[in-house]
């Protein structure tokens, strides 16, 4: 097997696989994909084949799942993936302007990555943070009531961390 994952990801996989009874390993497909993507940032054919083997499903069934969910990706994105919500609550609170600001300030379009591979942006649908609209999510970290000024600060922090 050409695929090698860290011991941490392997442990997460094993834990989720053990959580389902024999013949029901299919349920572990989505978590396994996410855990692996957290580490590698991209879902490859080898990865899907390995998951199909371990979760005892056909390769095509994993492919179906990856194709369906937009947060599972076959193309690499930035180290920091900035997701801006423009769904109704956020839009009413300035989400659309925030998204336009993000595009213009970073010179990036939807699902595009900066040349140094550090930042990518995506316009997303509702993240369930309507009470704190407009919201953005950087990888797994939420930021609430984001204004264009606050957005610039967040980007500066990211660039500082590198």
């Amino acid at each position, binding site marked *: 097997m050409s695929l090698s994952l860290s011991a941490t990801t392997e442990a997460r996989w094993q834990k989720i696989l053990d959580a389902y009874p024999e013949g029901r390993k299919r349920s572990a497909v989505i978590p396994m994909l996410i855990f692996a993507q957290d580490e590698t940032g991209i879902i490859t*054919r080898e990865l899907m084949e390995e998951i199909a083997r371990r979760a005892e499903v*056909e*390769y*095509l069934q994993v*492919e179906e799942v990856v*194709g*369906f969910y*937009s947060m599972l990706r076959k193309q690499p994105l930035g180290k920091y993936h900035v997701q801006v919500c423009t769904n109704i609550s956020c839009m009413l609170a300035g989400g659309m302007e925030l998204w336009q600001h993000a595009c213009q300030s970073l010179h990036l379009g939807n699902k595009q990555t900066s040349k140094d591979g550090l930042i990518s942006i995506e316009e997303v649908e509702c993240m369930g943070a309507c009470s704190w609209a407009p919201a953005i999510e950087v990888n797994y970290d939420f930021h609430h009531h984001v204004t264009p000024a606050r957005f610039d600060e967040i980007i500066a922090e990211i660039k500082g961390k590198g």
Partner: protein
Amino acid sequence: MATTTAPPSVINAKLNGQDIQTKPGTLLINLTKELGIEVPAFCYYEGFSLQAACRMCLVQVNNSPKLLPGCTTIVTEGMVIETESPLVVEARKSMLEFLLVNHPLDCPVCDKGGECELQDMVFKYGAGESRFVDIKHHEPERPFSPVVYYDPARCILCYRCVRVCDEGYGVNALGVVNRGVLSEIAPNLGDQLNCDECGACIDICPVGALTSHTYRYKTRPWEMKHVGTTCAHCSNGCKTTLGVRNDEIMRANNRDASGLNEEFLCIKGRFGFDFNHHAERLQSPLMRVDGELQPVSWSKALAAVASKFNAVKSAGGKFGVVGSNHTSNEENYYLQKFARQGLGTNHLDHARTGDVVTLVDALSGKNGKLAVMADLYQTKAALVIGSDLAQQHPLLAYELRRNFRHHQARVYAMTPGPVREDSYAVAKARVPFGEELAALESWREALAKEPELLILFGDSIKGDAVRRLVDFGESLGIPVKYVALVDYANSRGAIDMGLVPELLPGYAASGQPGMTLPEMLADPKLDVLWVVGADPLAGAKLAGKPFVVVQDLFLTATAAAADVVFPAASAYEKKGTVTNVTGELQRLNAAVKTMGTKPDLEILGLLGKEMGLDLGIWIADAVLEEIRRNVRGYNVTMPILASGGAALTSPVNGRVNVASRPELIRSAGDTLFTSGTLTKYSQVLNSVPERPGQLYKPV
């Protein structure tokens, strides 16, 4: 306060203003169907899991604020259903408009045009105008395999193909990838299929999204005439409906679900008809002149053979007659009559592929012990011994699987290697050929607990082993039925019609000595070897130098060594009957004609006439009448046969007083992609990438 009430035995509801009653648990769409009210649907397909994907069957139900899909809604007490209300009519129209947003209007060139469900529904339910003004999303069509093509733009995502492949065949070769407008059907190897290549996905597709490579862009459905006949390949006896145009078979399917296979067909039934039009089909009699086979006229060839036969007969010479697993019952009956009465010889045999004789004998005095095709779907439990059903007996495998899906049939698989039945079998065991009977003892207890059992066995169980298997079955104390698996379209009919030296038609002992096939080939003093539709010299040599006469479709190894070759018509070119593996008699109907050929029955008749014999008229229907009168078990009901059904034959219920010849029984071990001598001449069977090889060939 807990009160229990008995579940209701009848449900009262109101449908379009009429009071109706139905059984509890009835799906709304099935209720309307029973009452003759059409509720249109794409994704709903009887026998497969419910999908509710297409939203065409939305109906109005009193207590629901939204329209409900009829395909997943169960009729409940007091339900008020409207299937033709303005809201429902509007919804249908909108759904069709929605489906047509990206569906190309290429009906004039689409294979499905004229028999397309989407076309029919738009015609019936409207949506003549579209409000969609943007550019349609389009993806180019692409091959999934040498037989299956996919046109994503035409696909309406009903999931029928995915379900027939997963649930029906157990192959899991198709899926749906991406989301929303980008969704499309995908094959299991990314861009190619690795599957049974059966083409069921093509036939079940309600639109022209999945098309057949052999048929696409060749003809329109209404230009063909359709001829229902029986598949020429394996012993399962599927009914296949040939679409014929200008004396050419364009396609085969069984969309009207008639026949014992309903819609089921494998690659051979659906695409394997192409041998019929192979360029190497013989179209003229051939005679050896100066050591070379030369084309000659029918009259010259018939005269030559007749005079040779008469000369050998009057000199008391030795004839060897070899029959076929593919020719019709009428031809087999006439051939044995020709040999026994006309030539006065009992040296008559064919390639035996399963021990039906011992089974019939071992079951003497017991009634209803031979299973029929319907039993595969109905039995509570089945035991498969020594056969990879999905490869070798695809209809039996499909029916067993369907039985499991619908009735939770308990299947036991005892085979030398992994088989598809393993995935749902209650017990599986890897047992080498010949060791099955000993291994069965470990399952005795479990099997005895089943309410009934159906035992299917391959050619590893033969001779005495059949008797011991029957002893085992009968000792379980439950009702047991049996199927002796045989290879080809009329392997069963060849035995039933007495194409062996020891048996007359109907399993009556011949009482005459006669040479078997290997003995004929090994006899240096054989004067004539007459081979009708078989190829015994493929891999075998003649000991003597007999005059060899061959009737065949192609120049087989035997034909190439012959002195006279008659070009025979194929199973798709003649009338007659064949008997399938479960003893059911079905009709062959002539769909096409290949110039220069004659059906074997006619060749036999003409040869008999030329010899001055009186063997009776050689019209298939007349010979069938003779068979019905003379062959025990074949007095079948004619209307069933005439209406394209399968009539059950019932072999003798007494002892078969002959010595079993297990050493002569050997299955050819064909798979889904091989069909004996026909394999070589089917381009489709040779074009698919799957090569399961010769599975389970006994040593």
